[in-house]
C-alpha cells in the first residue's frame, strides 16, 4: 500500500467513525427520551469519534514516515558483508546510495555486484514489509480509537467540550510550527557549521582574506588547499547591497513622499499598484533581465566612457536589485509617512511653511524611525537576495570596492557549493552551511532591530 492509499483509507475510516459515533449518539438519545437529554449535539459525538480515529493514526504516520528510511538503511547496512561494512563512512555512503538508486530504478554510479543486488532486494522487501506494517498499524489504531470512543458514548459524555479541547490543542500545535521552523533552521545550520569549524578554524573563516573553496580530491592536485576566508565574500555582498540601496532608497523614498503628500487620489490609485508589480515579479526574472539586458548595457556604456567593465559587474546586479527593492522601500515608507498625524502638518502650514518645508522639517523627522526601520528591512532583503546575484554576479571572490569588477556574494557561494550531487561531509559543502549561518544571523539581527524600531514608532502615534 502506498502512503497515499493509506491516507485515503484513513480518511474513509474516519468518515465511517463520524457516522458511527453520531448514530450511537442518536441510539443513546432515543433510550433516554430524545436528543435534548444528550449533553452535546449528536454531531459532536461523531466528531469526537472521528478525531480519536484519525489523530493517533496520523501521528503514527508522521513518526513512521520520518524514521522509516533511517531504520531500513541501518538494517540493510547491518546485513551487508563485513568487507563492505568495514569501509570508511564516505565510501559506505556511496554504496548505500547505489543501493537506493537501484531500488528506485535510477542509474547506478558504481558497478552492480551480486551483493549490492541482494542488498537492494533486501531493502525493497523491508520497505514493502514496513509499508504493510504501517497500514496495519494505522488502521488498527483508528479502529481501536473508534471502538473505544463509541463504547463510551453516553448522555453525560461532554463531547462538545472534549472536541473543543482537542481542536484547541491542534491550533496550539499549528502556531508552534513557527517556533519549530526557527529551531529547525538554527539547529540544522548550526550543526553543520560546527562540523565545518572542526576542519577550518573560526578565525580563519571570519578574518581570512582569501576564498577559494576547491578541495583537492587527490593530494597532489593543483590548488589543493581550500581557502575559506569569508571577508571577500562579505565585501562583495556589501558592495552589491550598497549599490542596490543607492538606487532604491532615494527613488523609493521620494516616490513614497510624492504618493503620500502630493499625489491626488486618481494618480495614487494607478501608480501605487503599478509600482507594487515590481515587488511581485519573481527574482529569477530580474536575474534574467540583469544578465541579458542590463549587464551588456552597463558594459557598453562603460566601454564608451573608457572604463573597463566586467561582463558580470557588481554594478549591473546592484542596479537591478535596487529596482527590485524600490517598491519595498516605497510601500513601507508610505505607510510610515501616512501614520504621521495630520496635526503636525497643519501646525507647520499655519506657520507659513511650504509643503516641501513641512515634509523636510516636520514630517520626515517625525517619520524617521519608521523610515530607518523600513530601510533596514530592505537591506536585509538585499543581503539575502539570491537569484539576481546568482545569474548576474560572478563566482570569483575579489576583494575590491570597484563596482565595475566581478564580485561574489554569500548567497551565490551557498548556491554554487550546494547545487548538484555532492558528498555531505567535505568542508566544501559544509562551508555553505557556515555561510548560511552567518547570513541568518546578520539578517535576523537586522530584522529584529527594524521590527522593534517600526513597532515602537507605531505605538508612539497610536
Amino acid at each position: 500500500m502506498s502512503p497515499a492509499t493509506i491516507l485515503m483509507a484513513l480518511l474513509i475510516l474516519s468518515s465511517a467513525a463520524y457516522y458511527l459515533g453520531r448514530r450511537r449518539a442518536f441510539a443513546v438519545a432515543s433510550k433516554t427520551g430524545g436528543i435534548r437529554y444528550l449533553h452535546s449535539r449528536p454531531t459532536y459525538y461523531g466528531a469526537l469519534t472521528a478525531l480519536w480515529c484519525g489523530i493517533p493514526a496520523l501521528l503514527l504516520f508522521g513518526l513512521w514516515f520520518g524514521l522509516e528510511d533511517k531504520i531500513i538503511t541501518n538494517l540493510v547496512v547491518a546485513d551487508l558483508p563485513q568487507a563492505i561494512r568495514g569501509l570508511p563512512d564516505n565510501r559506505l555512503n556511496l554504496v548505500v546510495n547505489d543501493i537506493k538508486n537501484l531500488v528506485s530504478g535510477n542509474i547506478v554510479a558504481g558497478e552492480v555486484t551480486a551483493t549490492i543486488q541482494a542488498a537492494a532486494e533486501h531493502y525493497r522487501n523491508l520497505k514493502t514489509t514496513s509499508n504493510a506494517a504501517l497500514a496495519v498499524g494505522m488502521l488498527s489504531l483508528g479502529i481501536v480509537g473508534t471502538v473505544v470512543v463509541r463504547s463510551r458514548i453516553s448522555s453525560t459524555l461532554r463531547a462538545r467540550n472534549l472536541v473543543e479541547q482537542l481542536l484547541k490543542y491542534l491550533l496550539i500545535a499549528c502556531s508552534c510550527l513557527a517556533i519549530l521552523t526557527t529551531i529547525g533552521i538554527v539547529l540544522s545550520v548550526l550543526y553543520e557549521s560546527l562540523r565545518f569549524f572542526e576542519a577550518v578554524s573560526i578565525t580563519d573563516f571570519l578574518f581570512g582574506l582569501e576564498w577559494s573553496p576547491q578541495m583537492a580530491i587527490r593530494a597532489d592536485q593543483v590548488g589543493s588547499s581550500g581557502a575559506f576566508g569569508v571577508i571577500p565574500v562579505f565585501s562583495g555582498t556589501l558592495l552589491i547591497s550598497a549599490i542596490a540601496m543607492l538606487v532604491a532608497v532615494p527613488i523609493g523614498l521620494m516616490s513614497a513622499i510624492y504618493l503620500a503628500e502630493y499625489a491626488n487620489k486618481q494618480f495614487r490609485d494607478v501608480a501605487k499598484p503599478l509600482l507594487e508589480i515590481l515587488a511581485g515579479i519573481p527574482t529569477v526574472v530580474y536575474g534574467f533581465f540583469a544578465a541579458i539586458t542590463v549587464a551588456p548595457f552597463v558594459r557598453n556604456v562603460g566601454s564608451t566612457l573608457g572604463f573597463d567593465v566586467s561582463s558580470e559587474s557588481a554594478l549591473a546586479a546592484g542596479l537591478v536589485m535596487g529596482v527590485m527593492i524600490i517598491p519595498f522601500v516605497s510601500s513601507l515608507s508610505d505607510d510610515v509617512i501616512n501614520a504621521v498625524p495630520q496635526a503636525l502638518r497643519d501646525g507647520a502650514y499655519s506657520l507659513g511653511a511650504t509643503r516641501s518645508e513641512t515634509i523636510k522639517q516636520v514630517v520626515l523627522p517625525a517619520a524617521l524611525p519608521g523610515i530607518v526601520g523600513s530601510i533596514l528591512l530592505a537591506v536585509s532583503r538585499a543581503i539575502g537576495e539570491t537569484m539576481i546575484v546568482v545569474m548576474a554576479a560572478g563566482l570569483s571572490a575579489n576583494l575590491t570596492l570597484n563596482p565595475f569588477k566581478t564580485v561574489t556574494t554569500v548567497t551565490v557561494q551557498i548556491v554554487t557549493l550546494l547545487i548538484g550531487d555532492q558528498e555531505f561531509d567535505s568542508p566544501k559543502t559544509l562551508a555553505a552551511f557556515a555561510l548560511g549561518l552567518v547570513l541568518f544571523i546578520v539578517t535576523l539581527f537586522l530584522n529584529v532591530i527594524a521590527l522593534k524600531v517600526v513597532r515602537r514608532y507605531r505605538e508612539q502615534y497610536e
Partner: protein
Amino acid sequence: MNEGDSKGNKVERKTIDIVHQGLAKRYRAERRFRLYGLTAILIGLLCLVILFISIVGNGYKAFQQTYLELEVFFDPALLDQHNLSTADYTGLVKSNLRTMFPEVRGRSDKRQLYKLISPGGAFQLRKMVLRDPDIIGRNISVWVPADDDVDMLMKGHFKADVAESSRRLSDKQLAWIEQLKEQGKIRKKFNKTFFTAGDSREPELAGIWGAAVGSFFALLVTLLLSFPIGVAAAVYLEEFAPKNRWTDLIEVNINNLAAVPSIVFGLLGLAVFLNFFGFPRSAPLVGGLVLTLMTLPTIIIASRAALQSVPPSIREGALGVGASKMQMVVHHVLPLALPGMLTGTIIGMARALGETAPLLMIGMVAFIVDIPGGLTDPSTVLPVQIYLWADSPERAFVERTSAAIMVLLVFLMLMNAAAIVLRRKFEKRW
C-alpha cells in the same frame, strides 16, 4: 524692500518683506522637490516598462517554430514490421532528405544537410508509424521541426550576410534553406511543443509542460499544508492565546520568519528533509514542504489581519446567545474573515510559485525530460526551468527563457487578479 532712504535714515525692515524676498526661492524649491518625487515614480515605472519590453521583445517569437515539409516515403525496407518501435527512423528522415536534394554528394555535405532537421523529426515519424502501421509503404507529406539554428535564421536572430566562419550555418545550408523557401516547404507555425513537452537539450524540442506540472504538484502540497495550518495558527493567536511571554515569542518568531532570506529555508530543507528524514531529492513533495514553511508566515500575518477586521460585536453577539468560544469562532468569525484569509493565501501562493532559490538547494535543478506523474517523481518547477534555460548557451534558449517567463508572469497576474477580485467582492467595511 529698501535698506534706507536717501538721507541714510534706517527704515524699519518688516518681517513680511523678508518673507517676500525669499518667497520666489522657496517656491522654486517647492516645485523642484515636487518634481523629484514625480521623477522618482516615473523612474520606477520606466524600469517596469523596460523590463516588460525586454522580456516580451526577447520572447514573443518563441511561440512560433520553424517547420520543414518532408515528403516522407515510409520505406518498408527500413521499417521492420516486427520491431517498429526500435526501427531506424533517423535513417528514414535522412533518406527522405537525400531524395529531396538529390544533388547533394559527399559526406560532409550530407551531414550538413541532415543538420537542418531537428532530431525530433525522427521521433515524430516513429510516433506516426506506431499509431498507424498502415502508412508503411505510402508517401505522406509531414511537417517536422527544423533545427534551432534554422529557426533562429528564419526569425532573424542570425544574420546571413556575415562571413561564413562567424555564423552557425554554412553557405550551402543557406542555399538549401533558400530553395526550401521558394518551394514553400519551410514555414513558421504555432509552437505546440513548447506547451506540451518536458525539458530537452534541443531548444526546438524543449517545453515547459514538465516544469508546469512540477510547479502544480509543489504548490498543491504547499496549499494543502499551509492554508489549514496558517489559518489555525492565526485563529489561535488572535482568538484564544493568552497574552504572555510564550505567545509574544511566537509572534516575534513569525514576524522574523517572514523576513528570513528564502535560501535559508532551502538549507533547512536540505539538512532536515533530505539528510535527516531521507526524503527523495528533486521531489515536488519536498519542494512543497519547503515552500510551506516559507509561505506560512505570510498566510498567518494576512489571516490575523482578516480576523482583526471582524468587529467585536459579532463575537459578543455569538457569545451572548450562548455559543462556546470555539462555536463563536467557527460559526461566526471564520466565515467573515475567510475572504481576507483566502486573499492572503493566494498572494502567498503567488510568491511561492515564483520562488527559486530554496528549490535549488533541494535538488530541483536536475535536467528532467519526463513529465512528473506524482509527488515523489523527480521534477523541476517553472522558475527553476527559467534559471536552467537562462544558463544554456544556445541562442534559441534566450527566446524560450523569455517565453517561459511570460507564461510564469501570466500565471502570477491571474493569481493576483483573483486575489483582487476576491477582495473587492467580499470586502466589508464595518
